[in-house]
């Protein structure tokens, strides 16, 4: 059988596209020079970029890392030949070399700086299960154990070494188990009765007690006592819920811990301290400074403002007129005034508002005001999350016969909070950036330290190096957080467009 056909039986190979539309040239034609207007824009942009880089790069790349004073830097620059029209020109990086630790930690004692670092690392471990749910439970425990192990080992000393090695070994063991068994095998093991690792959220719940202890130090019994308050409250509720009804038990469960915190924690911790003294060297908040201070203020304000914000948002949504009016009034008041005026209140008025004789230090006062500030914004973010929930969810909760609080706890809040996470992260970025304002009321945050450093006779006259360094670090922090929040937004977006 022969097959005569006038139709081509096999496909021709694809021809390479013309060289003008491929490779770099094609890309440039398509993206940079398609049309007159675009070409002009491209050329203009290139010129702008060139001028900016030509001005900045020679200034940045100068060998002054080891300068000991501005004078010394100028000598180095002159020797290296980078001389402009007004004498030596170029950065004096010696100031960063000498002071970067101070810019990061403020006056926190040298020997204790592992504590803020550890707290910072643990912060990540604690928020990971909240923020990234793609990470597995075991992975989270590996991280936690590894961070703790390394943290303790760096303390030096035989005991610390042993404990650290133990933590690391545990981390390695869990990691080995994780990579050694596949997901399916693991599921099988669990089905057969193997124990699951505890939920890492437990650590997230403990972290708020560990972090202040690490940062401020003091007896370990104080945070334990504070944490016990919650356990006591829970215990009271369980014990009395049968006897006096849920409402009475709830009221008791609020009152008893408050009494405990106000009157008994002090004696409890001093008693336990005399029995089993264990603690870290106390560091006063006054020693906090630099980026550590900014991060502390930001994180504490956001963490504390979350519950307040939820309450305010619910209050603003509620049908109770007076409650609603109070919440709206508070939110609009805080959002209506600049943070700086609230900080002025913290620095000059807060002591006047409190009972005579009360006096707690400026950083705590600032923390209070920034928390109030953040909670108003947080309330609006959460209100947005609540509003974004379909009404069907509320109706479904009602249909199930859940009461208000059960509906909030089980149906509404978990969803609303999840939707609000990007907003919460951007509120955090905002608050973190706003912490530089505390320099105006004489706290030594990075900008405040910048002034203090420039008052040192050696570095008097430095401008750009310090500002540049501070701006860079802020950029790194805020940019990565905003990327993260965008990633979340993409992940949470379920509509298809």
């Amino acid at each position, binding site marked *: 059988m022969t097959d005569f056909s006038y139709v081509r039986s096999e496909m021709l190979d694809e021809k390479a596209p013309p060289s003008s539309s491929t490779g770099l040239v094609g890309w440039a034609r398509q993206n940079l020079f398609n049309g007159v207007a675009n070409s002009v824009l491209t050329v203009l942009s290139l010129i702008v*970029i060139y001028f900016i880089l030509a001005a900045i790069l020679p200034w940045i790349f100068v060998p002054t890392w080891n300068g000991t004073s501005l004078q010394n830097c100028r000598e180095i620059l002159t020797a290296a030949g980078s001389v402009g029209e007004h004498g030596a020109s170029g950065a004096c990086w010696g100031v960063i070399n000498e002071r970067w630790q101070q810019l990061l930690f403020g006056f926190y004692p040298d020997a204790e700086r592992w504590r803020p670092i550890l707290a910072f690392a643990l912060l990540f471990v604690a928020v990971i299960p909240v923020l990234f749910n793609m990470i597995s439970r075991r992975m989270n425990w590996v991280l936690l154990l590894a961070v703790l192990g390394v943290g303790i080992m760096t303390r030096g000393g035989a005991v610390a070494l042993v404990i650290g090695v133990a933590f690391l070994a545990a981390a390695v063991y869990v990691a080995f188990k994780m990579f050694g068994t596949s997901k399916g095998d693991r599921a099988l093991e669990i089905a057969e009765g193997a124990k699951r690792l505890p939920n890492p959220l437990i650590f997230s719940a403990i972290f708020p007690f560990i972090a202040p202890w690490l940062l401020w130090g003091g007896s370990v019994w104080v945070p334990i006592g504070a944490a016990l308050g919650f356990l006591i409250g829970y215990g009271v509720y369980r014990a009395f819920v049968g006897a006096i009804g849920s409402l009475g038990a709830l009221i008791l469960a609020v009152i008893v811990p408050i009494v405990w915190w106000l009157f008994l924690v002090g004696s409890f911790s001093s008693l336990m301290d005399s029995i089993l003294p264990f603690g870290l060297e106390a560091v006063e908040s006054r020693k906090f400074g630099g980026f550590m201070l900014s991060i502390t203020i930001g994180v504490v304000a956001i963490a504390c403002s979350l519950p307040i914000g939820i309450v305010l948002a619910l209050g603003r949504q509620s049908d109770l007129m007076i409650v609603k009016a109070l919440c709206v009034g508070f939110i609009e008041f805080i959002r209506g*005034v600049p943070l700086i005026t609230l900080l002025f209140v913290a620095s000059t008025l807060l002591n006047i508002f409190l009972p005579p004789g009360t006096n707690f230090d400026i950083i705590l006062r600032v923390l209070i005001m920034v928390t109030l500030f953040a909670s108003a914004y947080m309330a609006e973010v959460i209100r947005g999350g609540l509003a974004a929930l379909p009404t069907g969810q509320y109706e479904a909760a009602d249909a199930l016969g859940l009461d208000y609080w059960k509906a909030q706890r089980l149906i509404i809040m978990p969803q609303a909070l999840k939707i609000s996470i990007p907003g919460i992260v951007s509120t955090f970025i905002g608050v973190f950036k706003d912490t530089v*304002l505390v320099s105006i009321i004489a706290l030594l945050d990075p*900008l405040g330290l910048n002034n203090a450093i420039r008052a040192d006779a050696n570095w008097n006259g430095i401008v750009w190096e310090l500002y540049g360094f501070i701006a860079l670090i802020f*950029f790194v922090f805020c940019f990565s957080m905003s990327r993260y929040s965008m990633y979340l937004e993409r992940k949470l977006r379920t509509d298809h467009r």
Partner: protein
Amino acid sequence: MTTTTDPHPESFRLSMLIYDSRYRSMTIQIVALIGFLLLIGWLISNTAQNLITLGKEPSFGFMTEPAGYDINQRLLDYNSQDSHLRAALIGLLNTLLVAVMGCIAATIIGVVVGVLRLSNNWIVSRLMAVYVEGFRNVPVLLWIVFGMAILIETLPPPKAFRGENPEASMLLGDSVALTNRGFYVPEPLFSRGLGDVHLLGNSSLRFDVSLDLIAVGAVFLASILISGLIGRRANAIQNATGDRPTVWFWRLGVVVLPTVLVLWILGFYLGYPELKGFNFKGGTYMRNSLIALWAALSLYTAAFIAEIVRAGILAVSKGQTEAANALGLRPRRTMSLVILPQALRVIIPPLISNYLNLTKNSSLAIAVGYMDITGTLGGITLNQTGRELETLLMLMLVYLIISLTISGVMNWYNESVKLKER
């Protein structure tokens, strides 16, 4: 809870306040109110007690005492013998000035950048992304200080303009001088001016109104109105006959001629800045503190606005553009009639909160020595009188009023935009 008896409608037991949903909300509200009042009362009694201990009875009497300090940038006349109240007023006007200028500039820059970020020119959209991310992720206070430092370090001082062979020279035919103390631009002057009206006599709130400006403004407004009438008539003719009469030259003439005439009658001319003594004299002087603050605030806020605009444009679904094209609308009309009205609804609410943020951020002016209300009332007045409670209360009240006004006006505008959509 276990015993269920028929409740008598008449009988009222105390426990119903908690367990009966009819009364419970009332109970909760009253408890909340009482708690709130107790808290306020507690704060006030503490404050009163503390102030008595400190020997500072609250009083606003200091506001009428002479301030004693000078303010460089002032929109109304002021000298160091004026009262603290007037100093606060000058500061308030400065705050409003930079806020209004900032909002306008931020909107313009933000819209341009937001559109350019969507450009298909790779390098331009990257550049805009770098700008947006760079400004958004560094505290605005740093940008303000940066802006000031850049102005001071890069521009020539006035003395550079002096001498035979000056290092720097003025721009645009010797009419504009850019110095590191600020920008000097020509100012409008009238040789046959009508003078000023002094209002409110000698009080702290006195101000002058320039009759020339009112005259020019009134004529200009009137001619715009007439031009609008002409346009409306043209529309009516078009609707009735289908032909649109050519009226643009009428409208232009009606707007331009009377205004020019009034300007000529009043003897309008430009006053140029001139180097005299230590500084330039004459012309309008925009201080570098104002420029730095203005630039930093607008660039910072514009970065946020750009993102809002971008998101707003992206939020209008592609089908809308396609539908408009199918109707035969040209690209420009598509943009102005279809895309923008829909995008605006998404854009405006976050835009309002950015305007508010800009206004509140203008309180950082103290970092560069721009005398806004935080610098006068909350700054030097507070320092010199030691009246923290009174000054801070007034300061917060002022900001609160500004914020509420802005959000009120903008919300009203937002509502009106929404109504048109149906």
